[in-house]
């Protein structure tokens, strides 16, 4: 998906920096992260979760767990996410897979992963010919601007995927933390 924000964002290389890691562990939402950070760095010292974070490596490991040794090919899957998200707490998402959904050839499962939330899984859905169409809609939480990956597993054991880069903005007017 195209990046359409006017705010230039450096591409995240490698694991999160220590502050970013603890921020990600602080909370699911971008709003919550930064609000707590701004409200008092004292809160950072109370962190019991200093090591809980997701990284591109954790996402890759989670994908491997699901896919095993299978090859993932890009295609057949369409991942619909708004490129610029007004609020990371509720992000509408639709995954559609091009498949006839017949008993002989259908999508068995759709898995969605993320790379910057505290943990890499978003959801896993089980489907079959009874669905007629492999299209799922839901709403997800995104802690930060990041990449989302959707992987479809077909009845023949093939894996197809699509990814989307999402920019998550922060609400300007927020709750009083105290």
């Amino acid at each position, binding site marked *: 998906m195209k990046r359409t924000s006017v705010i230039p964002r450096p591409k995240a290389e490698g694991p999160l920096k220590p502050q970013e890691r603890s921020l990600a562990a602080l909370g699911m939402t971008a709003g919550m992260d930064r609000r707590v950070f701004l409200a008092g760095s004292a809160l950072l010292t109370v962190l019991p979760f200093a090591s809980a974070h997701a990284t591109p490596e954790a996402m890759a490991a989670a994908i491997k767990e699901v896919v095993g040794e299978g090859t993932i090919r890009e295609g057949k899957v369409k991942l619909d996410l708004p490129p610029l998200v*007004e609020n990371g707490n509720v992000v509408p998402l639709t995954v559609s897979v091009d498949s006839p959904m017949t008993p002989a050839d259908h999508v068995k499962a759709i898995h969605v992963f993320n790379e910057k939330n505290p943990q890499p899984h978003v959801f896993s859905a089980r489907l079959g010919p009874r669905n007629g169409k492999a299209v799922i809609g839901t709403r997800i939480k995104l802690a930060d601007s990041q990449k989302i990956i959707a992987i479809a597993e077909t009845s023949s054991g093939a894996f197809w995927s699509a990814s989307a880069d999402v920019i998550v903005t922060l609400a300007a*007017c927020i709750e009083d933390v105290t």
Partner: protein
Amino acid sequence: MKTIRIALGLASVFFTTFALAQGSIDKRRSGYQDMGEALQKMQDDDTANPGMLFVQLGEQLWAKPAGTANKSCADCHATGSMKGVAARYPAIPKDADKPVDLEGRINLCRTANQQADPLAPESRELLSLAAYVAFQSRGQPIAPPSDPRLGPFRAQGAEIYRRREGQLNLSCAICHDDNAGKKLAGVTIPEAHPTGYPIYRLEWQALGSLKRRLRNCLVGIRAEAFAYDAPDYVALEVYLMDRAKGMPLEAPGVRP
């Protein structure tokens, strides 16, 4: 558990009145128009709008007897009788000299007519009832009452709206009159018309009142929010509703 299967006819009525309002000389924009398409779709679908979960709850509470009088709202107010009410609040109740907002009016009924304890501010019950009432005015143009006693409160609200506050020394007018339509941190600054209240704000992941949103604004400009029961909020709302006069109500709105 009852399910509501609401025809999308209501949504299309809203669209039509909306389109008509925009087709004429009214250039005012509701916050709905400043949202992305995905969020607009979320608001439009009555079975996907999270605010509707609260409307459904409100509908159940409406029929529940309460207080020592053991009366429900429905005992006095027939189903569907709340049409147009939310469009003309805040208003000054009979035998009173100060305006109340919709939540205040509901609590007045609770204490005076049901002999029940008032519902806590921003409580799920109070918001659900307000959402149920406001929902019945969906599509109706905002129509503040012509009560002359509201004049001073409207003026007070206008003064608060233009007053600079907080560490950022901003007034509501600076963002929402002078800079509406421009971007703030990647998001379009809305004109701040209270067309969708109570709203399901994604930031709260819950339904909330205009009062809660105004408090967020005050925190946003690094000001100390007025006390929860301060009359300033109602005065502001009297002014804002007058400023939004004629715009269609969208309750329950979805906002980022």
